């Protein structure tokens, strides 16, 4: 058993930022456990630009963004173990990991920062009928083949799902000379960032077919085509709208799922909407001393916000180590009309700081108002020309508003449509 102050699980953007921040705050013994051969996480295969606009005020590629943190890390004495996969976390913060170089590693940590990221929803989770040939894969897997291995997963591509990875891969495959026939989206709107729809589809003449899904996959050994169909408002395929599209590859970008199997093994409470842990404003989970940040907590659109969230979690962990387990009393956030979820789910009423609330809306709104109420009293009301589920929203609760919170106070966010 080796003792550490903080064990950071995952060396992607969240883990890197968390470890660096904790070091900056004076924490001595920190270890990052990363299952891949290299640090950087999914950023390593995101060779497109668009990262860092908020955080660095510069447009960087994924590896460049990660590189900034990896360079910083080299200047510190943070212990980094790549090729090391955590297989268990116990509620008393014993981390078990294995790796070819490490063998079996047991770590007793004072605090743990969960930063495992997320995984892509596979074909089975959306039950597409038909054959099961080669050539059906998630957009992220295709991205790895193209950007890391340098191989083409196909030549004639249909993409199902207009999440950001799907949009990015539409452009990437087109740039590599593949024929990207279309992107189908079962919802009446795209779940991706508006800028990606313009830069990845419109600029390349790739059609986005809304309210459309794939209803059958054809081909015994390799994909030969798909049947697409329009769907009704309940997302059921409409008979008579079927259309056969010849292709050799179907890429799926149909959602991301925070990867919380380890959090569950530790006994952390998981939120059924975000798929991530329930946390307070410092990103502390239901187990004191275990923190979560990045896509393991909630699926982010922009890595810049992952970094900020990770720094917050690191601050929380540092404070926990320095001050020990101080009693916390909580107020709770509640998603009301039009709001799908809010992170954090609870706020320590003695948090003497501004608190940003991150949330997503349920549908597209135009000229609506975001209203925040504390115990029924409106504290913020802000006009928004457009709100979309694909774009994460934030509101800031100023320190003076936090000071008004009492134990079990309710902080509600709702969307009000103007008439």
């Amino acid at each position: 058993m080796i003792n550490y102050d903080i064990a950071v699980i995952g060396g992607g953007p969240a883990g890197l930022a968390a470890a660096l921040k904790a070091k900056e705050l004076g924490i001595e013994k920190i270890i990052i456990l990363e299952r891949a051969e290299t640090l950087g996480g999914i950023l390593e295969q995101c060779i497109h630009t668009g990262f860092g606009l908020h955080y660095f005020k510069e447009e960087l590629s994924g590896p460049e963004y990660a590189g900034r943190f990896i360079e910083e890390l080299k200047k510190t004495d943070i212990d980094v173990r790549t090729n090391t996969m955590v297989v268990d976390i116990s509620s008393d913060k014993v981390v078990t990991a294995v790796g070819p170089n490490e063998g079996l590693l047991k770590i007793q940590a004072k605090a743990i920062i969960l930063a495992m990221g997320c995984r892509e929803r596979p074909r089975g989770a959306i039950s597409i009928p038909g054959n099961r040939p080669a050539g059906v894969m998630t957009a992220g897997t295709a991205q790895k083949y193209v950007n890391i291995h340098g191989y083409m997963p196909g030549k004639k591509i249909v993409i199902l799902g207009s999440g950001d990875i799907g949009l990015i891969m539409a452009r990437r495959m087109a740039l590599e000379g593949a024929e990207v026939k279309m992107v189908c989206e079962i919802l009446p709107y795209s779940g991706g960032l508006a800028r990606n729809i313009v830069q990845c589809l419109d600029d390349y003449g790739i059609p986005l077919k809304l309210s459309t899904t794939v209803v059958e996959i054809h081909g015994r050994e390799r994909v030969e085509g798909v049947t697409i169909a329009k769907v009704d408002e309940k997302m059921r395929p409409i008979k008579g709208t079927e259309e056969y599209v010849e292709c050799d590859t179907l890429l799926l970008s149909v959602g991301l799922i925070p990867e919380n199997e380890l959090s569950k093994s530790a006994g952390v409470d998981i939120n059924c909407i975000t798929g991530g842990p329930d946390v307070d404003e410092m990103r502390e989970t239901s187990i004191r001393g275990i923190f979560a940040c990045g896509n393991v907590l909630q699926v982010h659109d922009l890595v810049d916000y992952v970094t900020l969230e990770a720094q917050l979690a690191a601050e929380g962990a540092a404070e926990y180590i320095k001050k020990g387990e101080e009693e916390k009393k909580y107020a709770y956030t509640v998603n009301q009309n039009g709001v799908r979820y809010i992170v954090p789910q609870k706020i320590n009423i003695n948090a003497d700081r501004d608190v940003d609330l991150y949330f997503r809306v349920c549908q597209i709104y135009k000229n609506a108002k975001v209203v925040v109420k504390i115990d029924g009293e409106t504290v913020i009301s802000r006009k928004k020309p457009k709100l979309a589920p694909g774009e994460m929203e934030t509101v800031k609760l100023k320190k003076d508003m936090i000071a008004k919170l009492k134990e079990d106070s309710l902080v509600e966010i709702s969307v009000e449509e103007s008439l």
Partner: protein
Amino acid sequence: MIYDVAVIGAGIIGALTARELAKYKLSAVLIEKCNDVAMGTTKANSAIVHAGFDAVPGTKKAIFNVLGAELMPKVTSELSVPYRNNGSLVVAFSEEELPELQNLLERGIKNGVKDLKILSKEELLELEPNISPEAVAALHAPTAGIVCPYEFAIAATENAVTNGVEFIRNCEVKDVEVHDDYTTLITNTGDIKAKVVVNAAGVFSDDIARMFGDDTINIVARKGEYYLFDKAVGHVVFHTVFQCPTPMGKGVLVTPTVDGNLLIGPTAVDIEDKNDTSTTYEGLMEVLNKAHKSVPTIINTRDAITQFSGLRAHAKSGDFIIGFSEKAPSLYNLAGIESPGLSAAPAIAVHAAQEVANKLGLTELKEDYNPIRPQPIRFRYLDDEEMAELIKKDPRYGRIICRCETITEGEIVEAIHAPAGARDIDGVKRRTRAGMGRCQGGFCSSKVLEILARELNIPYEEVTKEGGNSRILYGRTK
């Protein structure tokens, strides 16, 4: 060379028969038209060891089912194949269905099934609290079980090869030439000569028989569609839960798998195309709706990890067809082995091998036959000390490739180099479970591809999902 026996088809029937044949002093070859064993019905079925109350007393189905189920614990333990004796329940959902339970009970007793009992609603709900409150009673069969069918066939083939049987894959029988004392099988990879040919070709066994001039067998492919769910809901039921057979069909079952997942299905639709294993919107909806009848609240498609369909080899004559062909004396048919074929398989194999050996006059047993297929390393089941020890010995066991199922590089390499080992991504998946978990290979398939290419010394572009033209990659990027 002329083999004593050639077995056509490396499904569970062919594989176990080959293994039984290996006990005798004779030469045998197992040929398979796909890139791997267990590629037909064996990889897509309910994975159930039936207790044996379903079949009509006196039929081959009844006899071999009960015998097979009895052999199951021993054979699966020799082959290190996951098997669990979880028991089964046939649930009646109305008073009208009660006579059917009684029927099944009496039939089961006639078939020699032990310990059958009809449970009251209260007893049932105590055993299985998640069963629908609409249930009124159930038939409990404690001898029923679950098994991993493809691992069973893989292990049997491995063990057969270890004991001297030759295994040839990607070898499709196109025609035969029957001579007086041997038969030539004309295949895409050359001729194979054998004195006796065992026909274990599943849904294609009638086509094989016809090549021998035996047109007495007619096989219908009967498709069954399934849903497989995440381990998170694998504990919803403990027993295999059947519904009462009605004139409308057998209903669907809800069962845990030996790997801890939840399986529901199948439908039953006769189809023309014996290669059609596609799933359908209607079929999958039917499975869900019917499964809801048994377990109403818990099954949510959000927890689904995959859907698939398999083809039952249904003989129009109804019963299993087991024995030498009356039309072609060198042909031994194992045809029409639909449910309870998996349960019956160990007993069918023993019987078939005996009959074939008798016919050849080669009943002498090998002294060095080894029935044991060693347990492949399963990293996830080791304790901390064992893990540390193993990684020290071979660091490849410390490199986890499949995160969802905790499968190491060492296990994958071992599966590739095993006798009759994996040659493609799905072959690795069936042997090790890499890619079998909730992300369905999203993270690990590219790594498995790398390992296959390296270990088999082939370029990336030649790695396939499951043989043939199922390649994953189309050449380099620009």
